[in-house]
């Protein structure tokens, strides 16, 4: 019984020392205060690039249904503050052709330059790829020398 009492006393004293140690630490720390919060940093949404193709000039002035033209010297505008690459064409608009709009002309890009890195702002003299007039383009689009094709291009940040 005496041996058990000593062991119990040792356990109790050990516990007390642990408690007092922790308490002393708390007493030391309690003069310090903590302030925490969370805030956010949002990354940019990539703005669409635009390419304006004037089909009146160069080799692109004689479109007819199904014709494919390689696009050279196209100016691509990157509205972002950073470099991007083109992923895909999201929309095409045709202007300057009177009744001939995109629904009637059906322009598409069977080939698209997805490797060039575009700087912020205007990027001149770009080989953009191939532009094709639909095989079933409306005859109203025939003999339209003043068509302007504007392509909206989805981009991705270039590393």
């Amino acid at each position, binding site marked *: 019984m005496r041996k058990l009492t000593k062991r119990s006393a040792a356990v109790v004293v050990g516990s*007390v020392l642990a408690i007092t140690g922790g308490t002393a630490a708390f007493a030391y720390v309690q003069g310090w205060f903590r302030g*925490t919060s969370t*805030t*956010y940093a*949002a990354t940019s949404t990539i703005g669409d690039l635009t390419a304006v193709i004037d089909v009146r000039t160069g080799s692109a002035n004689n479109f007819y249904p199904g014709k494919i033209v390689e696009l050279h010297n196209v100016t691509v505008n990157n509205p972002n503050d950073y470099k991007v690459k083109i992923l895909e064409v999201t929309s095409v608009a045709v202007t300057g052709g009177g009744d001939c709009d995109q629904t009637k002309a059906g322009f598409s890009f069977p080939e698209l330059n997805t490797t060039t890195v575009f700087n912020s702002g205007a990027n001149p003299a770009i080989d953009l790829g191939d532009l094709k007039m639909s095989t079933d383009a409306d005859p109203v689009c025939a003999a339209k020398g003043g068509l302007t094709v504007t392509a909206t291009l989805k981009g991705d940040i270039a590393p």
Partner: protein
Amino acid sequence: MKAWRTAVTVAATLATAFIVAGGQPSDADGQTMMLTHGGRDSHGNVRFTVIGQPVSGLYPGATREIKITVVNPFGFPLSLRTLDGSLVGTNRRACPATRSTLRVAGYSGLLPITIKPYGRSTLPGTILVTMPRDATPHCSNTKLQISLTGIGGKAGR
């Protein structure tokens, strides 16, 4: 049994003495104000308020400054000793919360800074966040969560 009772009594006395001593403030008035006006976190620690202004428009290579406001809920001057930020999360799985996505620098101003009792102060320095040039493109249009932590004490302590 007598030894047992003695040990328990001594232990209880010691524990009581230390707990009372630990709970007593070195400055009774300051401690009272702290307990009355300070908030407490989930661990029961008294805390003050740090507010970080959100930033936007980050892209690879870009740097933004997070402005910090500290609110002192105590009735004594608070001396802000340290202030740090760290990236803790994103809302896009493909854009991990790592240093390759965003680097969060330490507070750029001089410390310590004293905030008046019950005062609110926008700090002269900022915390810079920089998106590395080689950050993954998957991080576009992403919300990055930054944790801010400040440590302070009673001014003049």
